[in-house]
């Protein structure tokens, strides 16, 4: 069981962390969340050129850096910490993983270099974000009529040049590719609970689309990859909120003493630290599983479930321990709270992932006894 990070990875985390600390201060977050586009094109270009993270986990032959889930996880964790606003999760992670996993060589050559360079934005359209087994029930594809159906919640579809769409076919669920500006695609913006993450409804009416690769795909693998990246983002956010809360507890005085000296609050913080530490260990283990198959097949489920619970618990307490001020718009806590709530339910609830974990153990046991 490998644990921990290499020195290079630690250094990379520092560089990425410093970058977003500088480029994604909360004033910027508050500005972008009000806007429809929701991200800065300048910063996107810097992320491609200066920081080099847009294609961090794409193979080098397609303009990427050839790293894997561990390094991508570092980026996601730091983005989550600073609540970075932009289509990174939608394009680089979601659509990127889909292309890497399933794309033909030609498709990868056509799209990945542009995505890594920052000139192309893609979005992955899944018609179910609760349960991977339900994907492809509401959108169908066949060779004659192309894509038909609706996905209710799609990240950053309104910013995308390219859509990759999960759709049911006669022979299972496949991924399909089409330009986002096709007239038979209707993208309708939706209001988000977490306004730092832009959502749309995407509707297809006889929209022609090309199969990604051979039209078959391993959706469970993709779901695990995305869940793992999301868990990292959550851990970063949870760390930030937890640290901010500790600072507040040390500074805020009531009844003549810092409220952090009240034992009930101290013990609560110890409990939160435990959840956070365990969730972080699970999340980093999931990255190693996704990267190298090292560890348990349920690693991503464990990570997403634990990170989701820990982030929400910390977010709730971050408000509660601030009292009234924590409930105001002016205070920043709610921005992370909303991200926590939205991430909790995105790509499977903690309950869903726990059920998936047991199913994987059962499958594994059956394999062993077969």
């Amino acid at each position: 069981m490998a644990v921990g990070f290499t020195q290079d990875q630690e250094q990379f985390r520092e560089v990425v962390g410093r970058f977003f600390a500088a480029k994604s201060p909360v004033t910027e977050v508050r500005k972008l969340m009000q806007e429809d586009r929701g991200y800065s094109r300048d910063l996107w270009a810097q992320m491609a050129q200066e920081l080099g993270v847009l294609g961090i986990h794409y193979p080098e032959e397609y303009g990427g850096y050839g790293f894997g889930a561990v390094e991508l996880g570092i980026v996601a964790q730091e983005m989550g910490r600073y609540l970075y606003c932009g289509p990174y999760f939608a394009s680089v992670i979601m659509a990127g993983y889909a292309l890497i996993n399933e794309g033909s060589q030609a498709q990868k050559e056509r799209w990945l270099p542009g995505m890594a360079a920052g000139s192309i934005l893609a979005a992955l359209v899944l018609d179910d974000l609760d349960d991977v087994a339900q994907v492809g029930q509401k959108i169908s594809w066949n060779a004659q009529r192309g894509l038909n159906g609706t996905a209710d919640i799609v990240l950053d579809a309104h910013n995308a040049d390219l859509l990759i769409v999960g759709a049911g076919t006669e022979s299972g669920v496949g991924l399909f590719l089409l330009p986002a500006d096709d007239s038979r695609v209707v993208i309708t913006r939706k209001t988000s609970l977490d306004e730092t993450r832009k959502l749309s409804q995407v509707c297809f009416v006889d929209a022609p689309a090309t199969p990604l690769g051979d039209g078959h795909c391993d959706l469970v693998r993709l779901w695990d990859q995305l869940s793992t990246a999301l868990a990292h983002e959550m851990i970063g956010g949870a760390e930030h909120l937890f640290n901010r809360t500790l600072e507040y507890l040390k500074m805020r005085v009531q009844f003549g003493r810092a409220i952090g000296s009240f034992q009930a609050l101290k013990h609560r913080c110890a409990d939160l630290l435990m959840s956070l530490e365990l969730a972080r260990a699970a999340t980093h283990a999931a990255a190693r599983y996704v990267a190298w198959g090292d560890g348990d097949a349920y690693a991503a489920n464990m990570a997403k479930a634990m990170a989701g619970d820990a982030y929400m618990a910390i977010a709730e307490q971050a408000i509660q321990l601030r009292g009234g001020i924590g409930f105001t718009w002016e205070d920043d806590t709610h921005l992370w709270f909303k991200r926590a709530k939205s991430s909790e339910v995105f790509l499977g609830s903690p309950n869903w992932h726990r059920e998936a974990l047991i199913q994987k153990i059962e499958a594994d046991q059956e394999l062993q006894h077969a």
Partner: protein
Amino acid sequence: MPKESVMADAEVRETVRSWLTEHWDINRPLDEWRECLVDGGWAAPAWPVEFFGRGYSVEQAALVAQTFEEFGAVGPAQGGPRRLASHTLLTHGNDAQKQAFLRQILTGEHGWCQLFSEPGSGSDLAGLSTKAQRVGDRWIINGQKVWNTSAHHADYGLLLARTDWDVPKHQGLSYFLIDMHQPGVEVRPLRQMNGHASFNEVFFSDAWVLPEHLLGAEGEGWSIAATTLSIERQGFSSERSGGRAKNLTGAIYDQYRSELAVELAPYTWYPQRTGRVDLAYPRAKASGKIDDPALRQALAKLLSMKKSADLTEALAAVKQRAGNNRVSPEGSVGKLAASAIARQAAHVHTLISGAGAMLGGDDSAHEGVVAEILLSVPAISIAGGTDEIQKNIVAERVLGLPKEPRFDRGPFRDVPRNAVDN
């Protein structure tokens, strides 16, 4: 005329009804009607005769209200802060103060607000540090208040400020009636995380209060505030309903509805703050999520908590009516239970919505209500005293556990406090 306190119920009803028959007119302007109400003693029948009332018992006053309701007549100006002001004035005001303020409260001419909490003193209300200094013939006020519902359209404020920094914190406070329309008072709306702006911040920069608007004596502020807070704790649920009049047709009702809309605006999200347990089962059923066994467990827990909290509250009410006035466990856990229920409800609504909980505003389920639940529930364990304070109270007063050691018993000047105050 029989002595009113021994009037039979039927007689009260009849008296009200005949008076209303004579005076009620749906085409009369609302303010004029309210003047008439006050003159007749019907705006506050439980108040003393010398102060606009009729000296009725509480039960009789309730009968009057009920008769008004049946008749479809609009009552006196209501609204939480107005009631805080009138009851505090009735208890602690001198005759001049009562004469000066009570009538305009009932007619609705004056709006009021409460100015107690401060950014630096939330749970520790008595640790507030807004300063009132006697300079010449005036009190000069400097400091900041927060969570002031209705302050943006209030004419007067119930202000708690520190007049003595050399005595322990509870002893150095005084209670003022402050004119909100003056240059030294600035009111800014305060927006919450759920998007609503139900409260204000109020800034005082050399604002002033006349000496005759000190309520009670200097240094008595804390005990007077206790009266205000106890009225606040009784809640305003009945007043917030607006009654039958809000659905009737006629000029005066239109005016009444406009008034109500303004006064109730801060509270539209309050039902969501409780978690809307009523929506849980119907939403689970409608969405098909009722078939998820983990949701069923969470839902059963929620419904059990809610039902047993209702039972507990009913029992507390029975005991209170039976005159058992000591702090009862049933009553004291109600607030903690409400928090636990709201949190569990938010959890259940999240499970029902699944990824749909990513949507906000009107795109959220149940015409936007679900997002509002998720973003309002955090308030319930904070507002009106945090769960932490409530647990201290339960542990000490109900369970008799020893008190926390105190570090704020000395002169307030020497008590450590937040930088923002100094």
